[in-house]
């Protein structure tokens, strides 16, 4: 019973700052009563934004437009390369352009339900509310969304909902939205409102008198560490899906900045809520460095099946209709192939584990376009998914128009993240987390096309308003000096750790440790979890951490471009973070959304929630090296919706 220390601090630790009043008036009320800063004073305030994905780039540009002095950081050589660029399917908004009964409330409800009633009502409602502004803004920025013949915007339907509210640019909506945000960022750079620091990795957060006042960054070209001060720090650092090594994320995506914030006192919320995406191209070789997603939009026209006979080795096209098991349509007749991602992923794993999987490894299912091509013609299907088909063919050598695709689930999106209040501020004053880096909007499972929506909503329309409420008390502070002891100490610590990594001089590469960590996490803390496995996983991670600090090899020095050193630092953080993640999964004795505990399921194999005991956000506080973290519970109150058993039957 090592975990019983939390209850007393639970209530006072949380000031969620959710405004009073009915759900649908909260944001309007907040906006009209929030304190403002006059434009002359904004010019004196500096804000650091870490990350230039959709949330970071949009926040930096919107803050720049308001006249703040913004410093923007990314590890890539250009802000345009952040991994939002790879989002494929689309971006949701409650425009109701289809007259199919959509509304802000329905989008909100779908997200709350899709998140299996583990998200905060007020934040989710606001995300739905600003979704329409996001579409207007991107359209004005020249983002080429798909259009209908009359010139109006087209939409398509996406997993887990029954309306058509997803705006898209073929299969590269993320690229188009990110390049839109990048263009608005560039405009602010050209005006001198934003200073861009590319090829920088943020390695620590600096607190002065308990407030976030800056960061220590490493210039990845020269290797030098740099001190950067500001009145507030915004983390837009994305998710931690690469903890599985193989995932749909960019290979350099990492959790280090968020982890450092956690170690400085920021709460980490629901770390075990990780979305496993159902439709990725399966692993093809043992040196594989990542898994490529095939957009969920394919499930609109593709039908998922496996052979009805166990171990059937015939070619897909040789298996007659009556010997195919369209298991999603069979198990979930109401939603069929469009069930949410967590449900689709588990169903695929269930079939493969039972011996019905296809391909050499047996770890794949078919996604078949034969019937759609027959019904709608090859041209229509090509128009919709052409670039995805090309990508699939490039990677596998198979043409999906002639043979069904093979797909398998892969680690994708992390619903968990830094704990934030209604203003998107963490519990550290002046430290904000936006986009995938925070926990607030997707509960235990995210619905398709809502990550671009949330990231842009946070960055363009929410943070720029809420941050003023904190900064208004900071205008008396002149520019933050980086000569203070706090900055010096933080920099010393960062350098000390770089040296420590370089001094191990063992035999193994950082990536080989990362790969083994990924295997542990996938096997014991992946799509399906149980107590015994989680405990085993935890002890394996601890052993691996010991081995890492004894047998890692990083050539070179830290005062030069050294990619092995970059990787080593990220893996070192993941080895710590993995333990928190597993601890969270162990403590949540229920199944909800993407968190599926074998012990808690219905007789039909569906997730069994426990609202009595677990309708809370698990916010973890760092308690020191190798000490059990402290759990704080933010109990979720549902005023407008009643938590129900999520059914897609």
């Amino acid at each position, binding site marked *: 019973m090592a975990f019983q220390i939390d209850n007393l601090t639970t209530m006072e630790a949380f000031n969620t700052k959710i405004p009073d009043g009915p759900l649908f008036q909260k944001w309007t009320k907040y906006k009209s009563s929030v304190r403002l800063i006059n434009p002359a004073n904004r010019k004196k305030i500096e804000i650091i934004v870490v990350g230039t994905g959709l949330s970071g780039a949009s926040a930096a540009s919107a803050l720049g437009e308001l006249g703040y002095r913004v410093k923007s950081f990314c590890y890539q050589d250009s802000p345009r390369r952040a991994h939002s660029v790879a989002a494929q399917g689309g971006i949701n908004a409650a425009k109701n352009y289809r007259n199919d009964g959509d509304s802000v409330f329905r989008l909100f409800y779908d997200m709350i339900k899709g998140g299996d009633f583990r998200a905060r009502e007020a934040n989710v409602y606001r995300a739905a509310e600003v979704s329409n*502004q996001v579409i207007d803004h991107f359209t004005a920025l020249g983002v080429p969304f798909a*259009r209908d013949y009359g010139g*109006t915007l087209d939409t398509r339907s996406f997993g887990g909902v029954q309306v058509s509210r997803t705006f898209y640019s073929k299969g590269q909506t993320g*690229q188009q939205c990110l390049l839109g945000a990048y263009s608005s960022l560039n405009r602010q750079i050209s005006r001198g409102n934003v200073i861009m620091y590319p090829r920088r990795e943020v390695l620590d957060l600096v607190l002065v008198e308990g407030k976030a006042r800056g960061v220590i960054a490493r210039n990845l070209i020269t290797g030098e560490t740099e001190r950067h001060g500001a009145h507030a720090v915004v983390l837009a650092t994305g998710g931690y899906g690469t903890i599985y090594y193989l995932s749909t994320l960019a290979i350099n995506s990492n959790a280090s900045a968020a982890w450092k914030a956690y170690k400085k006192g920021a709460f980490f919320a629901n770390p075990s809520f990780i979305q496993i995406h159902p439709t990725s191209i399966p692993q093809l070789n*043992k040196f594989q460095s990542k898994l490529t997603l095939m957009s969920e939009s394919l499930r609109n026209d593709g039908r998922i099946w496996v052979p009805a006979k166990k171990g059937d080795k015939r070619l897909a096209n040789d298996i007659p209709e009556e010997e195919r098991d369209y298991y999603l349509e069979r198990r979930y007749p109401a939603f069929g192939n469009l069930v949410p991602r967590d449900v689709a992923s588990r169903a695929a794993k269930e079939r493969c584990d039972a011996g019905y999987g296809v391909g050499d490894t047996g770890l794949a299912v078919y996604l078949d376009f034969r019937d759609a091509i027959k019904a709608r013609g090859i041209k229509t299907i090509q128009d919709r998914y052409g670039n995805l088909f090309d*990508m699939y063919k490039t990677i596998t050598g198979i043409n999906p128009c002639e043979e069904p695709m093979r797909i398998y689930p892969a680690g994708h999106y992390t619903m968990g993240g830094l704990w934030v209040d209604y203003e998107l501020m963490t519990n550290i004053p002046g430290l904000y987390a936006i986009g995938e880096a925070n926990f607030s909007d997707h509960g235990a499972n995210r619905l398709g096309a809502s990550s671009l929506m949330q990231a842009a909503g946070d960055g363009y329309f929410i943070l720029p308003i809420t941050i003023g409420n904190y900064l208004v008390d900071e205008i008396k502070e002149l520019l933050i000096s980086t000569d203070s002891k706090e900055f010096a100490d933080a920099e010393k610590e960062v350098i000390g750790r770089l040296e420590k990594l370089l001094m191990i001089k063992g035999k193994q590469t950082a990536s080989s440790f990362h790969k083994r960590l990924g295997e542990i996490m996938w096997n014991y803390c992946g799509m399906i979890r149980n107590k015994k496995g989680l405990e085993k996983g935890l002890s394996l991670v601890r052993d691996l951490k010991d081995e890492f600090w004894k047998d890692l090899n990083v050539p070179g020095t830290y005062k030069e*471009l050294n990619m092995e050193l970059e990787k080593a630092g990220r893996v070192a953080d993941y080895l710590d973070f993995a333990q928190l993640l597993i601890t969270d999964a162990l403590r949540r004795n229920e199944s909800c959304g993407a968190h599926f505990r074998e012990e808690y399921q219905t007789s039909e194999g569906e997730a069994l929630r426990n609202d009595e005991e677990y309708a809370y956000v698990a916010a973890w506080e760092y308690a020191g090296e190798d000490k059990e973290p402290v759990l704080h519970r933010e109990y979720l109150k549902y005023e407008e919706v009643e938590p129900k058993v999520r059914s897609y039957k």
Partner: protein
Amino acid sequence: MHFTLKIWRQKNSLARGSFETYNLDDVSPEMSFLEMLDALNKKLVEEDKDPVAFDSDCREGICGSCGMYINGHPHGPVPAITTCHLSMRYFRDSETIWVEPWRAKPFPVIKDLIVDRSALDKIQIAGGFVSVNTGAAPEANSLPVNKEKADEAFDSSICIGCGACVAACKNASAMLFVSAKVSQFALLPQGRVEARQRVRAMIEKMDELGFGNCSNSGACEAECPKQIKLVSIARLKREYYKSY
């Protein structure tokens, strides 16, 4: 599969570089070119040698980070793909493969296969945007856009900014890159408002940064991993003449 690799090694921007020879066994045909380099680097690190530095991130052909000259072609010999998508099954067993960084004056080498492409960002900063503030946008459907034009704008908008066009061009011209952004905005009513200023500012910046002119040889189009068409350079020129 086995390969002999001749890779350009250069310690930093000031050092002189040269080709080094490496032999690599046990390459599987399913590996991507970058995964093959990962395997080489694993071997080098285990021998405590300096691994080959190269840029890559998304590894799914969309971020534009990766890019190198492979056997004389940007992103390798297979058309319309990025290096991260180049599969080793396209090479012959025991082949010698030459690997070099992008070669262009505005892209100085940082280390090995990594070059500095910040000049491309500078061109975008000069004018690659529509000047609209957050909150000022009209209702999205209030401005209908012809579907064909919107689709054409999309075809230009998919540039990933990898720099292959510059590297392929004997003049190190960035015309294809610039024309992609200029075309996207020129084709959409949202972008027409400041079309004149935009095209001039971007071209001026391009010249200032030392990119060469276009002499219509079309190498950029042939090597572009996203198949941006030469016709967009024609549109760029038209936009430029119209701006005076």
